[in-house]
C-alpha cells in the first residue's frame, strides 16, 4: 500500500534570505511581549493570585447572570466576575481574595452559597489562600527557569555550546511570546497554562534539535560548503518532517481544543500557539542564529571521526 500524498523532491527554499525579517519580527514580538507583561501584566487565575472560583450549574433552566450578580454584590465581598461557561445554565463565578488571610476565604464561599440559595449545583469550587498563591508562582518560575537551564546543558553536552545558546534563545523567544499572547488577549494564566508553557519549551527544543542535528551532520558531510548554504540545506531536508510533525501534534491539540471541554481551553490555546511559534522559531531564529554564533566546524568534524561508529553501535 502506497501513501497517497508524497513530497517527492527536496525543496530549495532560501530560508536564510528571510531570516533578517524573521529576527526583526521576533525581536519586535519579544519586546512587545515583555512591555505588555510589565505594563498590564497577566490575567492571573486564582492559582496564582489567590481568591475563589465557583463553577455553578443552575438546575432546570438557563442561568440569570444579572440576578445572580446582584445577589453576590449585595454581600459586599469585592468585585465578583460572572460569566457563562459552556452551556447556558453554567456560570463561572470569580471572587477576589478576601481580607483576613487564609481564614477569610472560607467564610466568603459559605456566604455566596447561602446568598445564591437552592437550585444550584456546585460543580467546582476552588479556593486558594494568599500564602499558597505566592508559593505556586515561585515554583512555576523555578520550573521554567530550571527546565530551560537543564535543556541547554543537555544540548551543550550533545552538541557544541553554540548550539545550546541558539536553542535557548529560540526557546526563550517561544516562552516569552506565549506569555505575551496571554497578556494581550487577557487569557487566564493558571497552573495548566504553566504546564502548557513548559510543554511548549519541550516541543520547541525538540523541533530545534532535529534541525541542529541535521546541520551538524551536513557540516561533517559537506566540509567546504558555506554555512549559509549549509543551514538552508538542513532546513530544506528536514522540511517535510517539520510539516508532518507539526500537523500531527496540531491535530491532537485541535481535538483537545474542540472536544476537551472548557477546562482545557486555555491549555489548548497556549499549546496551539506554542506549536506554531515553536516551529517558526526553529526555522527562522534557531537555525539562522548558528550563522552568527559560528559553531566550531573543525571540532565537529573531529568528533565525527572519533565517534563515527558510535551511532551504529547505539542502535543495535
Amino acid at each position: 500500500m502506497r501513501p497517497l500524498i508524497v513530497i517527492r523532491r527536496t525543496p530549495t527554499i532560501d530560508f536564510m534570505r528571510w531570516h533578517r525579517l524573521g529576527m526583526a519580527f521576533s525581536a519586535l514580538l519579544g519586546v512587545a511581549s515583555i512591555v505588555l507583561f510589565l505594563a498590564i501584566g497577566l490575567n492571573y487565575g486564582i492559582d496564582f493570585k489567590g481568591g475563589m472560583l465557583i463553577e455553578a450549574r443552575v438546575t432546570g433552566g438557563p442561568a440569570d447572570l444579572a440576578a445572580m450578580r446582584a445577589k453576590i454584590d449585595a454581600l459586599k465581598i469585592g468585585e465578583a466576575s460572572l460569566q457563562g461557561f459552556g452551556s447556558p445554565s453554567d456560570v463561572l463565578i470569580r471572587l477576589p481574595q478576601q481580607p483576613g488571610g487564609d481564614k477569610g476565604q472560607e467564610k466568603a464561599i459559605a456566604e455566596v452559597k447561602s446568598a445564591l440559595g437552592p437550585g444550584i449545583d456546585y460543580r467546582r469550587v476552588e479556593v486558594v489562600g494568599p500564602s499558597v498563591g505566592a508559593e505556586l508562582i515561585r515554583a512555576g518560575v523555578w520550573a521554567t527557569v530550571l527546565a530551560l537551564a537543564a535543556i541547554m546543558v543537555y544540548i551543550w553536552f550533545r552538541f557544541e555550546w553554540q548550539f545550546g545558546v541558539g536553542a535557548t534563545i529560540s526557546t526563550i523567544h517561544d516562552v516569552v511570546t506565549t506569555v505575551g499572547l496571554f497578556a494581550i488577549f487577557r487569557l487566564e494564566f493558571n497552573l495548566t497554562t504553566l504546564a502548557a508553557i513548559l510543554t511548549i519549551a519541550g516541543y520547541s527544543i525538540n523541533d530545534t534539535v532535529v534541525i541542529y542535528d541535521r546541520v551538524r551532520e551536513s557540516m561533517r558531510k559537506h566540509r567546504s560548503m558555506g554555512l549559509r548554504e549549509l543551514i538552508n540545506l538542513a532546513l530544506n531536508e528536514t522540511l517535510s518532517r517539520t510539516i508532518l510533525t507539526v500537523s500531527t501534534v496540531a491535530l491532537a491539540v485541535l481535538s483537545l481544543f474542540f472536544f476537551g471541554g472548557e477546562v482545557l481551553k486555555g491549555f489548548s490555546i497556549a499549546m496551539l500557539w506554542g506549536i506554531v511559534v515553536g516551529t517558526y522559531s526553529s526555522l527562522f531564529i534557531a537555525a539562522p542564529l548558528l550563522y552568527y554564533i559560528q559553531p566550531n566546524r573543525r571540532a565537529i568534524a573531529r568528533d565525527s571521526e572519533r565517534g563515527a561508529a558510535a551511532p551504529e553501535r547505539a542502535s543495535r
Partner: protein
Amino acid sequence: MLYFANWKITLICAVCALGVLFTLPNLVSPATLATLPSFVPHKQVSLGLDLRGGSYLLLQVDFAAAERERLNGFVDSVRNALRDAHIGYTGLGVEGEAITFTLRDPGQADEARKALDKIDPELVLAISPAGAATMRFNQSASDTRRRQAVEQSIEIIRRRVDETGTKEPSIQSQGKDRILVQLPGIDNPEHVKALLGRTAKLTFQLVDTAVTLDDARRGRLPPGDEILPAQEGHNRGGPPAYVVKKRVMVGGDTLVDAQATFQNNEPVVSFRFDSVGAKRFGDATRENVGKPFAIVLDNKVISAPVIREAIPGGSGIISGSFTVQSASDLALLLRAGALPAPITILEERTVGPDLGADSIHDGTVACVVGVILVIVFMVLFYGLFGIFADIALFFNLCLMLAALSLLGATLTLPGIAGIALTLGMAVDANVLIYERIREEVRSGRSMLSSLEAGFTRAFGTILDSHVTTLVAGILLYIFGSGPVKGFAVTLSIGVLTSLFSAILVTRLLIVSWLRRWKPREIPL
C-alpha cells in the same frame, strides 16, 4: 539493524502483550472486575479528584499558635517562681516566640536563673546585662514537637474523616507543617471542612464569681483569671462572656467516649472520663459544690452550669442549646480528640461528581478523535508504513495505560491532555525515521541499506528530542501540584513508551514484513 534475535522478538511481543493485558481492566467497570477470577489483573488507573469528584484540601498546622499557648501556660509558673525568690520584675508576658520580662535589678540575674531553672528543661533563659530576659523553647525540642504535632494532627484528622464515612480518604503530610487531605466523592464538603478546621479543645474551668465581668473588663482582672466569650448560638439568655480561672479542672484529653443524645427533648452530648479524669472531675466537683463551672470549647464557653453535688461517676452531660447536628458534630470531635494546634485551610479544590464525569467524557472524546485523526493522517502520508506506525501507536497507548495502572499513578484532566499530546508527538519518531528512509532511497541506496540507515541515523535525533521533553516533564512533576502533576506523569510515561513503540515495535513490524513478503522496493 534488520536482524532481530529471537529472544528480542519474544521480549518485544511480551511487553506489548502485557501492555494490552494490563490495559484491559480499565475497560470494565469496577463491579464487573470484582467478579472476575484472581489471575486476571485488577489494577485500574486511579482517577484524580478532578475526574471522579471530591475535595482536595491543603491544611496548615498553625504550630506557632500552639507554641504561644504553651508559653502562656508557663507564664504563671514564672510569676510564682520569681515571687517566691523575691525577685522584682516588670512587663511579664508572651511576645512572639518567647516569654519576656525585665528585672528591676539586673544584679539579680543569677538568682533569677536559679529560680527559673526548674520550670521546664526545654525553656532556655537569656538575660541581657540591662536585665531584659527572654525564655524560649530550645530549637530541637521545638522541632520535635512540631513533627509530633503534624503527626498527631494527621491521626486526629483521619479519625474525624473516618467518622464522617468518607471512603478512601488520603491524608498525608506535605512539607514541614502542612497536611494534604484528599476526599474522593464527598457530598457535603462544607460540613467536612467545618469539622476539620475545629481544634475541639475541651476544658472544664471554674467560673470566678468573686469579680464581675464589668470590673474584670475595666482592668481589674485577677491574676490567674481570663475572660472567655460565650459560644455564639449557645447559652441563650446567658452573659456574653465569663470570667474564668485559667487553671483547667479537667481537660478533654481524658475523655474516653462522647455521644449525642437527648435530655428533656433537647439534644445534648454525654461524655465519659477515663479513671484519671473521673477522679479529677469528682474531686473538683466535690470541692466546689454550689459554684458554676464553664464548659469551654476552643476558648469559647458553651455553658456554665452550677455544680449541685459532687459527680463521682466520671460521666456527665454537656447541654447548651445544641441542634441535633451540632450535638452529633461535637460528640464526633470529642471522640476523635483535639488537634494539638489550630488548623487553617490554605487551598481547597472541590469538584462535583457530574463535572468529573463530564470531564472524563470530554477528555476521552478528545483523545479518541485525536488518535483517529493522527491514524488517518499517517496512512495518508505513509501508506503501509503509516499502518505500521499506527499499530505502534496503539501499543503505545496500551503501554501508557498499563504503566499508569501498575504504578498506581493518578490520572487527571490535564493528564488526559498529556495523553492526547504524547500520542500526537509519538508519531514524530516514526516521521523522522520514514523521512530519513525516503531520503536514503532518493540518494540511490538499496532498499535494505536505506531502511538500515533510516533507523540508525534517526535514532540519535529521536533520543535527543525525547530526553528534552522528559526533562520538562520531570521538572513539572517536581514543581507542579495536583492536576499538573498528573499531566507531568502522563507526559513522562508517554515519552518513554513512545521511545519503545516507535523504534522497536515499528522496526519489528517492518522486519517481519520484509521476511514474510520479500518486497523489492519500499512503498514510501
